[in-house]
């Protein structure tokens, strides 16, 4: 049974879009997804002409599709962006060294420069060395915090104006749920923002905030993009836990659920944030502070970040 594309009515449909239930052929799907991301970028004014934008590149599906899309749209719509790839080498043999090979091939394919910063350069140790010290318990949490910070440092060193990350709609919906479950009100108020750190020297933007993971993977699959899909050796089956699973179950029951979760989080108004509420409400919120040891921002004033665990 062959179904025709609901848009051009000429080619065979190859997928059903989760958000709209449209059935599209390959070409119409590429065009629809690219246009949607372009509208997100333009609508939220994510970039300004002449900006130097670091595309956070892990070699995985999201960042590979992001590099592909941003270079395509930059050329098609003359954004005037100076794009480059920024990768972090955590020092995980058999995982990051292989995925970095993928990023190096992306550098060739998309003709944008690649900068790699390693934990070894920035911090003096590799993730392999850390795991040897502390074991694999909680190492993903540490690694995630260090990677985030390493991206900031690396981007600053190569004078980026902004960092673009491959966070997709499923990731954002998952974060919204996690913040509700944890009762983390300040984070709930900002986790669905498309730009974070607006006032900081290095804002982060999420061009895929409304893009479903299914469509990113289908796009990469149909376009045969070269991405790396092996799991990290320290958490081969991590799979991001129950919140992720729950988001996927919701999507299976009702595909719009993901974008609905994001839209509702956008409506949250947290007293003390976004200029709503009064000073007392603002003061009652936990304030971020700087780590006593490294000076990097930590979630609570006066507390150390994760440096405490690192053998000196």
């Amino acid at each position, binding site marked *: 049974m062959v179904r025709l594309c609901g848009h051009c009515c000429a080619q065979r449909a*190859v*997928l059903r879009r989760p958000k709209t239930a449209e059935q599209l052929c390959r070409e119409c799907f590429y065009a629809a997804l690219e246009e949607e991301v372009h509208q997100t970028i333009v609508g939220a004014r994510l970039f300004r002409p002449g900006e130097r934008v670091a595309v956070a590149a892990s070699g995985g599906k999201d960042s590979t599709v992001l590099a592909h899309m941003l270079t395509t749209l930059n050329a098609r719509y003359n954004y005037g962006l100076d794009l480059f790839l920024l990768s972090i080498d955590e020092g995980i043999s058999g995982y990051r060294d292989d995925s970095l090979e993928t990023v190096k091939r992306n550098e060739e394919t998309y003709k944008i420069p690649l900068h790699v910063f390693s934990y070894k350069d920035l911090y003096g140790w590799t993730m392999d060395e850390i795991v040897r010290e502390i074991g694999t318990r909680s190492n993903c949490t540490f690694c995630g915090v260090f990677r985030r910070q390493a991206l900031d440092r690396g981007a600053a060193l190569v004078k980026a104006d902004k960092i673009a990350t491959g*966070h997709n709609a*499923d990731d954002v919906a998952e974060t919204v749920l996690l913040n509700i479950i944890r009762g983390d009100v300040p984070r709930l108020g900002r986790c669905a923002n498309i730009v974070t750190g607006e006032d900081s020297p290095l804002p982060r933007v999420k061009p895929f905030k409304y893009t479903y993971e299914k469509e990113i*993977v289908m796009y990469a699959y149909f376009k045969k993009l070269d991405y790396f899909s092996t799991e990290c050796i320290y958490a081969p089956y991590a*799979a991001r836990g129950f919140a*992720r699973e729950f988001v*996927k179950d919701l999507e299976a029951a009702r595909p719009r659920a993901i974008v609905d979760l994001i839209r509702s989080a956008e409506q949250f108004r947290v007293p003390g944030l976004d200029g709503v509420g009064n000073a007392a409400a603002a003061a009652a919120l936990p304030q971020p502070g700087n780590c006593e040891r490294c000076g990097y921002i930590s979630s609570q004033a006066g507390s150390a970040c994760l440096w405490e665990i690192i053998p000196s």
Partner: protein
Amino acid sequence: MELLFGNQKTVEADIPVSNGGQLTVAEAMAWARDNLLTERPELFMKGSSVRPGVLVLVNDTDWELCGELEAEVAEGDRVTFISTLHGG
């Protein structure tokens, strides 16, 4: 996904058809789980269907367009499973 299937990317399989009928994706999937899967079946299937977050294509077409579990497969057809659950 390869990790679960003994690191193989593509597997050619001769799936026995029960009671002379038409093979469906549901049957092919259950057969793959019982005969090909080497690790962690819960990361592949949940109940009698695929685990949410695993995409299924029949001859490179989204299975949602072919009837999902009821989609018919015949000799030479290709069923693709893609996990979306790894990092990006």
